[in-house]
C-alpha cells in the first residue's frame, strides 16, 4: 500500500514541478510585476496604473479590439474553409487518398512559421511570383502590391491556422456515421437541412475546440501581422513586445499580458455561452 503511494508520488512530482515551476510561478511573478509601477527615477510602488493605462489610452484598447475582431474573423473564415476540406477528406475522398490529403495539409508545418511567412512574401510582393505570372499572361499591365494589407494578412493567418481547425474536424466527422446522413436524406431532408440539422450539430465539439485553438493562436501571433500586415497592422502582441523590449517597461508589458489572457478568456467564455456549450464537453 505504502509502495503504491510512493509510486504515485514519484510519478506525480515531475508533473507537479512542471506545472508549478514552469506555469504557476512565472505567472505569479508576472502578475506581481504588473501591479507595480516605476516613476521617472526608477523607484517602484504598488498600483493599478498599468491596468488603468490600458483603458484610458485609446491606442491600447483599440489595438486590442482590432486584434480580437480580426482574430474572430480569421477563426470564422478558417472554419468556413476547413469544414468542406475536412468533409471531403473524411466522407468523399477515397480512404486511401485521404491519408495523403491529410499529409498534404500537414506539409506547411514541416518548416518554421518564419519560412512560411517569407514564402508568402515572395509570392505576393510587388516584384513577386504572382505578379510576374500575371504580367507574363498579360492579365495586368502594371505590378500590383498584394502585400502589406489586411486582406493578405488575414489570408496568411487563415493559412497558418487551417491545420488546427481541420484536425479536430477530421476526428469529429470521422465519428459521424454515414448512415445518419443517409437516414436524414431518406426521411426527406435537403442537403442544407442535413448540413444544419445533422452534420453541424454533430461537429459542434470539434468546431468549437478548433475555433478556440485558432482564435488563441491568431490572437497570440506576432510574425504574420508584423511581416505581412504592413504599416497599419498593429497587433496586441506587438504592444506587449514594445513595452517589454523597446520601452523597458516590464510592468506595463506584464499588465498587457494579463489583460490579453483575461480578455481572450472572456471572449471564449462568451462564445461558449452563445453556442450553449461548456468547456469540459469540448475538451472531451
Amino acid at each position, binding site marked *: 500500500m505504502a509502495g503504491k503511494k510512493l509510486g504515485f508520488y514519484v510519478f506525480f512530482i515531475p508533473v507537479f514541478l512542471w506545472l508549478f515551476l514552469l506555469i504557476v510561478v512565472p505567472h505569479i511573478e508576472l502578475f506581481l510585476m504588473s501591479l507595480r509601477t516605476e516613476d521617472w527615477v526608477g523607484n517602484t510602488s504598488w498600483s493599478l496604473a498599468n491596468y488603468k493605462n490600458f483603458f484610458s489610452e485609446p491606442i491600447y484598447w483599440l489595438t486590442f479590439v482590432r486584434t480580437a475582431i480580426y482574430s474572430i474573423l480569421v477563426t470564422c473564415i478558417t472554419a468556413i474553409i476547413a469544414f468542406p476540406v475536412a468533409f471531403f477528406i473524411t466522407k468523399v475522398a477515397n480512404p486511401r487518398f485521404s491519408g495523403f490529403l491529410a499529409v498534404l495539409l500537414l506539409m506547411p508545418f514541416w518548416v518554421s512559421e518564419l519560412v512560411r511567412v517569407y514564402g508568402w512574401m515572395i509570392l505576393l510582393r510587388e516584384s513577386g511570383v504572382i505578379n510576374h505570372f500575371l504580367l507574363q499572361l498579360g492579365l495586368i499591365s502594371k505590378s500590383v502590391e498584394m502585400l502589406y494589407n489586411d486582406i493578405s494578412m488575414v489570408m496568411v493567418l487563415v493559412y497558418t491556422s487551417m491545420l488546427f481547425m481541420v484536425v479536430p474536424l477530421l476526428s469529429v466527422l470521422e465519428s459521424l*456515421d454515414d*448512415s445518419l446522413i443517409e437516414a*436524414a*436524406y*431518406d*426521411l*426527406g431532408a*435537403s442537403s442544407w437541412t442535413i448540413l444544419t440539422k445533422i452534420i453541424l450539430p454533430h461537429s459542434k465539439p470539434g468546431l468549437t475546440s478548433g475555433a478556440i485553438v485558432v482564435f488563441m493562436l491568431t490572437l497570440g501571433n506576432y510574425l504574420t501581422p508584423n511581416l505581412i500586415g504592413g504599416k497599419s497592422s498593429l497587433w496586441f502582441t506587438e504592444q506587449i513586445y514594445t513595452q517589454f523590449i523597446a520601452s523597458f517597461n516590464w510592468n506595463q508589458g506584464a499588465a498587457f499580458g494579463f489583460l490579453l489572457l483575461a480578455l481572450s478568456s472572456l471572449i471564449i467564455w462568451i462564445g461558449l455561452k452563445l453556442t450553449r456549450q461548456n468547456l469540459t464537453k469540448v475538451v472531451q
Partner: protein
Amino acid sequence: MVVDLKVEKVSKVFGTFKAVDEVSFEVVSGNFFSILGPSGCGKTTLLRMIAGFLEPTEGQIYIRQKLVNGIPPNQRPVNLVFQNLALFPMMNVFENIAFGLKRRKVEKKVIEAKVKDILARVGLSGFEKKKINELSGGQKQRVAIARALVLEPSVLLLDEPLGALDLKLREQMKVELKKLQAEVGTTFVYITHDQSEALVMSDFVAVMNKGRFEQIDTPQNLYRSPKTAFVAKFVGDNNALEGEMLKKEGEMVLVSAYGHEFWVRAGSYRLGKKISVFIRPESFLLEPEENLSKVNRLKVKIKDILFDGANSKLLCLLPAGPEIMVALPQNKKFAHLKPGDDLNIGWFYEDSLAFS
C-alpha cells in the same frame, strides 16, 4: 391486388463486378416480403437501389406504378430502416420521429398527434422526451421503425434491423414486427441473412444468391419444395448425399450412393448423371416400422448426440459415406440412444430431393 413495388430486370455493376443481375419481382400491397441471402449476395445493393441511394445500371423500378429511376431518396415514397438504425443522437425521441414530418412542413399540431399515435402503436407512449442513448436496444428498434412508419411510406424497407439484438430479444421482435406490419398494413420489404426471420415473418421470401433470385415463394414452399440446390441448402438444415442417377420414373429418380439405392423426388426436370440428394434432419424416421411403404432405409452408427433442447440432433455415420444429421425428438422414446449404438433410419421417398 395493387402492386406497391415492381422491380424489372434490374442490374447493378460495380466496375467488373455484377452485384445484382437482372432481378425482377413484384410486391403486392400489404405484403411482408423478405429477401434472404448470404452476406455479399447483393441484397443490400438491391435495397439501396429501391431506396434511391444507388441507381440501377439497367432495369426499372416502379413504386405504385410510378417509375422512380433517377428520383433521389428524399423524394421517393419509400423509407428505410437502417441496419444500425441511424437514430439521430443529437435529438430526442420526439425530434427523431418528427424529423421527416417537419421536412414535409406538416403543421405542428398534426406532427404532435402523429408522433403520439405512432409511439403508442410501437408501445413507447410517453417516451417523447427521452434521449436516444437512454433507450434499450429494443426501444431504439421501435423508434427507428416508428420514425419511418410515421411518414406512411408506400413501401417500408428494412435492412436487417434485428441484426444487432441479442437472440432472445430478436425472437420477441420478430413476432412484434410481424404483428405491427399486420396492424398498419404497410408493405414491408425486409432483407436478412437469417432464414428464421424470413420464414417467420414473411408472406413471400425471395432467396438471393450471387446477384440473382433463386426462388420467390411462400415460406412453406421454400422449405418443402426448394427449386435449386442452393435454396435447399440455405433454407433450413439439410443433409447432402452425393450419388449417381440410375433411372427416372415420372417425378421419381433412383439413385445409387455409397452402395445403397434410394428413390428420391427430382428437384428439377433436367438432371445429369451426378446428382446431390437433400434430406432434412427432421424428415428422418427413427426405427421406422417394417410395414411402411415408399420408405428408404439405412443402417447407421451413432457418433455423437448434439443436445440443443428442441433442436437436438444425432450425428450419425453412414458406412463408407458422410456424416448424417438426424433430428432427435425429445419425447423420451429415444432417450436410450447413446454414441456407438447402431440405428435404423428411413425417410419417405417424397421427403428427399435430387438436384444436379
